[in-house]
């Protein structure tokens, strides 16, 4: 029997279980694969799980399987630098990021799980007149969309982050910054668990270590009935065949491999994005700081570690190995910005796969194959968009037509020359 809401976490529960040394209930149960589902979601990252959650919550569709070849959150959703913000450039994109930020704001209470959302403010530094001009433009575009976003001078930067050197003789003087007060960080694992737990409580099944090997189609113009004009009837997995009239591709870096299985070509190339984290130190960095011209960004976790990131790697690949080149470049740029951290040691570096599109905007909604939906192409910026995307995808799947909010991001835009250029606000700060 499906519970409607998961068991609540509370201080009382903590004490009770602590005293009795009781097991905690699992966040989601293990199931055998059914022979059929109303919908199969491929990819157990924030996008797949949010879609599953909103299908159940808003549309009562719970005969759903989320399948991941590894573990939930093992893709980009557990590897990102967890920055959330909505100060993008296109009105189409801002709709999404803003809605998601709103949903993240109430997530801890909605899901009764501490996602450690910290609206600490987001600063994009300008080191030249030219970049200050770009910041002004971005701020004006943001204001028109009702986004809290403004340009501030070096003195105000110093007030927000006292440890930054704003003197004229710094290696890269700070001319000002684009300041986005609602931006911040969130605990990405907790977000993944919150959606999985809430969806599972409503009856949706989570299937880890379940790799989709093929998508079964009929009536399409390509080989084996795949391709435009056809429809999906199910998937082949390492645990057997399962039928479903709806298959949703939420596989980010692996997106083209899954779409190939349905005969749908995508404008996506897979690149690695790397990040690194230092040993923990006393908290000194109260906001997220991005420098576009130095190709790096940094935030400090509540534990005190500095989390660093940079732009996407220059060579496309499916290998998730980190490179020394990245650490070397990153260290150089970070030291230009914050010479004071020179003696800190990096604890870890890692890489994740990013599904890059030509216009730095996602590809969402229906495809030329009936029942096959995509929510991919989120590149280096998709974590913050998870909640809004899940809500809109669930809406799209339940109605069979693209929700208004995702219509500009349909696959057809590439053939029809309607690109949604977001590179200016997405290339370095994710």
């Amino acid at each position, binding site marked *: 029997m499906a519970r409607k809401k998961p068991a609540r976490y509370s201080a009382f529960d903590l004490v009770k279980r602590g005293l009795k040394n009781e097991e905690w209930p699992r966040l989601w149960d293990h199931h055998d694969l059914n022979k059929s589902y109303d919908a199969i979601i491929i990819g157990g990252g924030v996008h797949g799980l949010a879609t599953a959650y909103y299908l159940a919550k808003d549309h009562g569709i719970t005969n759903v399987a989320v399948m991941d070849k590894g573990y939930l959150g093992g893709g980009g959703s557990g590897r990102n630098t967890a920055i959330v913000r909505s100060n993008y450039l296109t009105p189409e994109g801002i709709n999404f990021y803003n809605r998601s930020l709103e949903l993240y704001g109430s997530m801890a209470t909605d899901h009764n799980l501490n996602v450690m959302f910290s609206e600490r403010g987001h600063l994009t530094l300008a080191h030249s007149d030219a970049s200050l001009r770009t910041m002004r433009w971005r701020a004006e575009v943001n204001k028109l969309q009702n986004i809290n976003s403004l340009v501030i001078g070096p003195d105000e930067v110093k007030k927000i982050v006292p440890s930054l050197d704003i003197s004229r003789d710094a290696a890269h003087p700070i001319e000002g910054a684009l300041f986005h007060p609602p931006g911040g960080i969130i605990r990405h694992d907790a977000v993944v668990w919150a959606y999985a737990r809430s969806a599972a409580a409503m009856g949706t099944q989570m299937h880890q270590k379940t790799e989709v090997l093929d998508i079964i189609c009929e009536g399409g113009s390509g080989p084996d009935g795949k391709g435009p004009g056809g429809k999906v009837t199910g998937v082949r997995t390492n645990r057997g065949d399962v039928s479903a009239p709806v298959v949703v591709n939420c596989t980010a870096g692996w997106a083209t491999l899954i779409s190939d299985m349905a005969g749908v070509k995508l404008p996506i*190339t897979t690149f690695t994005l790397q990040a690194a984290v230092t040993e923990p130190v006393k908290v000194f960095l109260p906001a997220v700081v991005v420098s576009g011209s130095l190709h790096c960004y940094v935030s400090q976790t509540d534990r005190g570690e500095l989390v660093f990131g940079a732009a996407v790697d220059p060579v496309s690949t499916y290998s998730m190995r980190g490179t020394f080149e990245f650490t070397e470049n990153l260290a150089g740029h970070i030291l230009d910005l914050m010479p004071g951290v020179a003696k800190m040691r990096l604890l870890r570096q890692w890489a994740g796969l990013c599904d890059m599109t030509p216009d730095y905007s996602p590809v969402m909604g229906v495809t030329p194959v009936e029942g096959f939906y995509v929510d991919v192409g989120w590149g280096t910026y998709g974590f913050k968009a998870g909640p809004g995307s899940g809500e809109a995808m669930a809406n799209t799947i339940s109605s069979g037509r693209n929700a208004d909010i995702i219509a500009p991001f349909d696959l057809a835009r590439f053939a029809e020359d309607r690109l949604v250029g977001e590179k200016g606000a997405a290339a370095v700060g994710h």
Partner: protein
Amino acid sequence: MLLVPCPNCGPRDASDFKFGGESSSRPDPRTATPEQWRDYVHLKTNVAGNQKETWYCRGCRTYFSLHRDTVTNIFGAPQS
């Protein structure tokens, strides 16, 4: 760090090169429809495995093609 085998300079760090992406065949611009042209510009194979791709060497200023396994990052022999 990737070591890219340049046909002229031999193996060198990837940072000496510009990666040009997967190779694909260009339709004839005089006869292609706008849709065909946009497909050529935007749609990717993005193979997980052996890929033919373009590189530019900043040392000898040459464009050349290479085969690389995009899963292991192992290069095949250079071709012109």
